[in-house]
């Protein structure tokens, strides 16, 4: 199980603060092979599923918690989620690899709660869904874009004031 203190000690090696935290869900080998390609009919091992799901969620949560004080001292205070369009509960047509996709949904929720909590403090957020196309904007470009935020008119719609998932063609993907 991940250890938040261990993560904090590791992050401190970077120095006082940093600017961008990039989150993604680990793609497991080994145990995850027991779940790969299996639909609900195929005898999913729930104990393996729970181990992987729990690790993935706690990894993200503990990393974020350890990182927040360091991000506060950074120049940008940005948190990024790298995901893909199968993270959309509304639109996905996936039937297998439950641990990974449930972890994606969990990560989306973590990002939303982070947004609710830290946006008032000036943190900014990006969720990039890589659909595998070699067209449009890359994840690197997207995570560094500014979102046309006008501080003096912050009521004017911009992506900075809502949590939105976009792909490389900047299409919005529903959660």
């Amino acid at each position, binding site marked *: 199980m991940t250890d938040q203190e261990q993560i904090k000690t590791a*992050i401190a090696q970077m120095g006082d603060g940093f600017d961008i*935290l*990039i989150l993604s869900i680990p793609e497991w080998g080994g145990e995850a092979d027991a779940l790969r390609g299996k639909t609900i009919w195929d005898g999913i091992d729930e104990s393996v599923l729970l181990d*992987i799901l729990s690790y993935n969620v706690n*990894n993200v949560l503990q990393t974020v918690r350890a990182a927040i004080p360091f991000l506060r001292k950074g*120049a940008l205070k940005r948190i990024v989620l*790298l995901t893909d369009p199968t993270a959309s509960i509304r639109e996905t047509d996936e039937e297998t690899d439950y641990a990974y996709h449930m972890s994606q949904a969990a990560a989306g929720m973590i990002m939303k709660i982070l947004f609710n909590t830290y946006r008032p403090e000036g943190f900014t957020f990006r969720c990039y869904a890589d659909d595998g196309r070699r067209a449009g904007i890359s994840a*690197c470009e997207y995570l560094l874009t500014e979102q046309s935020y006008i501080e003096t008119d912050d009521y004017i719609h911009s992506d900075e004031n809502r949590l939105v998932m976009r792909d490389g063609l900047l299409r919005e993907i529903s959660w």
Partner: protein
Amino acid sequence: MAYKILLNTLDNRQARKVSRELATEGHEVYALIRAGRPGKIQMQCSLLLQM
């Protein structure tokens, strides 16, 4: 402007690709490296590439 960036994992293809691209662009990129399986984690914070 060059930023200091941390990734929570490199056990993700997208993360590996993004970390390489960012490092190539001159950003200071770090990653938390998981050694071992759940329950036996050792966290290191490795500087990946720096121009």
